[in-house]
């Protein structure tokens, strides 16, 4: 039914007078839908880790000259890279949705005399900001603006 947790989890500061069994955690702790969402949330860090390496590689190729840059751009057309970027985009959306849901309640009740707006307003505002910035950057990269 249960497996071991860290052997010193919730241990008293000095040993008690009675021998205790070590702390346990449910052996099926990973199967709860909430925990799976949380583990997936944390696992997206691996994607960002790989994105970081790819970004460094691309910048390196940019500095290596036009031939290296063209070769890198050609390599990025490989279906493996495209699939990786689709997964990265999905993980960004997933993390953003979860983060935006939890962000409002992490706000302090007041900063000096100023109170933050209500939770739903913050929640909606985050989406407006995200989508707005994405549009601006996309249009800028496409050469439509700036």
């Amino acid at each position, binding site marked *: *039914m*249960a497996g071991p*947790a*860290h052997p*010193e*989890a*919730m*241990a*008293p*500061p*000095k040993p*008690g007078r*009675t*021998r*205790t*069994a*070590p*702390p*346990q*955690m*449910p052996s*099926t*702790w990973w199967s*709860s839908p*909430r*925990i799976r969402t*949380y583990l997936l949330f*944390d696992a997206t860090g691996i994607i960002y880790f790989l994105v970081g390496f790819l970004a460094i590689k691309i910048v390196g190729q940019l500095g290596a000259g036009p031939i290296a840059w063209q070769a890198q751009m050609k390599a990025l057309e490989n279906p493996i890279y495209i699939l990786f970027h689709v997964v990265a985009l999905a993980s960004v959306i997933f993390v953003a949705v979860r983060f935006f849901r*939890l962000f409002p*309640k*992490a*706000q*302090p*009740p*007041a900063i000096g005399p100023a109170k933050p707006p209500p939770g739903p307003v913050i929640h909606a505002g985050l989406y407006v900001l995200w989508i707005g910035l994405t549009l601006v950057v996309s249009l800028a990269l496409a050469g439509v603006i700036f």
Partner: protein
Amino acid sequence: MSTTEKTIVISRFDPDKDEAPYTQEYQVPCDPSWKVLDAVNFIKDELDATVSHRWSCRMAVCGSCGMMVNGEPKLTCKTALDEYGDRVEIEPLANFPVVRDLVVELDGFMHKFESVKPWIKRVKERAEDMENFNEKGTYSQSAEELGRFKQFSMCINCMLCYAACPVVANEPEFLGPAAIALGHRYNLDTRDEGTEERHEIFRGEGTVFSCSYANECSEVCPKGVDPAAAVNQAKFGAVIDWAKGLVLPRAPHAAD
């Protein structure tokens, strides 16, 4: 009223006899109105008097009867048995050392609790110098000021949040949701002058920044305290306090 027989599986451990916990099954005729605690009490009263468990108020205000029910931390006096099928597995709260059967060691929690200085701390010595002091000799606090921390004062120390927290399971030094929520409660209290001191505690190892915002503590909290909100508000406060400390002189710490 007709009863339904359920198999109640209880984790057993006697420190004088057993090397490790084991499970024991009981066939219990359960009334449809029963809570999980009623089944455990029936087992102790009618089937096996050696089963040890904690309980007290039976109305979800004392926090004594927290146990793992089918792998989820629950207050057993508040959890209806009808929510479960024919087999119900009851274990002691996860992440705590087990004293006996369903009873866990609490000293570790009490130590973490005390470390956040969960009391009103005052710096000024003369009552007349204290802010909000009025002619009746009491501190004035508006309803709005009370509203800022009231939610976090509703904690009944049931420790379900500790049983649910994945960080508690893996980092023994982590203060944990309830202790941090309580420290944050006093930080938000306008009568308190120990905020800087608590924020210094919160910037230490194993405190607020160990939280990874799994939000499990708030999901299992039976009183709607939302400790995840408190911990993450405390992160913000600790950082702001650190930044202020770079440019502003620190106020003297209040005596304990």
